[in-house]
């Protein structure tokens, strides 16, 4: 994966679907890239670090030590009482946006339903566990 380190805090990585994913799931709306992105970051995660994956429709509205503090602290290296989890965000996308574009050729979608909003944008909090070890073992180009 091509990496551009802009400064000590920000990095851009170019995810090439054609190199990293089977052709059947190249389409970005299959979201097959998401698990590989999480896996690739896990390869380099330091023991004291927590991984927060957030969809771009997520907005953080309070400081990290207020927002979800009980989650973060429970997942910290000292306690490790909490496994990775996924939280729903108060954001939404349409059903059509979240559905693979070829799906309607198999199962027709009512246009009114397709325009309906879905909630639950992804906000995933990860730390090292047995489950994450298995994700980490995924091969990423």
């Amino acid at each position, binding site marked *: 994966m091509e990496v551009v380190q802009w400064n000590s805090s920000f*990095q851009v*990585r170019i995810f090439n679907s054609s190199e990293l994913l089977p052709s059947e799931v190249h389409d970005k709306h299959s979201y097959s*890239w998401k698990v590989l*992105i999480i896996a690739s970051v896990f390869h380099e995660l330091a023991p*004291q670090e927590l991984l927060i994956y957030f969809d771009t429709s997520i907005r953080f509205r309070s400081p990290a030590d207020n927002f979800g503090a009980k989650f973060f602290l429970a997942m910290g290296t000292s306690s490790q009482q909490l496994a990775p989890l996924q939280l729903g965000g108060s954001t939404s996308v349409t059903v059509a946006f979240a559905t693979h574009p070829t799906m309607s050729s198999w199962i027709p979608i009512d246009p009114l339903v397709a325009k309906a909003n879905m909630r639950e944008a992804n906000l995933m909090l990860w730390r090292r566990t047995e489950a994450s070890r298995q994700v980490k073992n995924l091969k990423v180009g």
Partner: protein
Amino acid sequence: MENVNNEGKNDSLFPQFVLVTASDATHYPYVRGAISSVQEHYRAGTYRLIYHDLDGELSRAADKSMINELKRVCNLEVGGLVAEH
């Protein structure tokens, strides 16, 4: 990277964050908003942020306005640390 919370206190219990997200060019406006909200609520030095540019739609576009704007949003020109590829 220091292990400090948002009030600047050393806190060995408080973890450090690796914030990860991704988008294509279509969803660039959402990226900007999301990163701005990170910058607003996470103290510099307590996190690192990794943005995944799906299929290089921002980085390899003929029009570099989106990727250049993202650099500005992230205050990335400071100190000559920008690494072009």
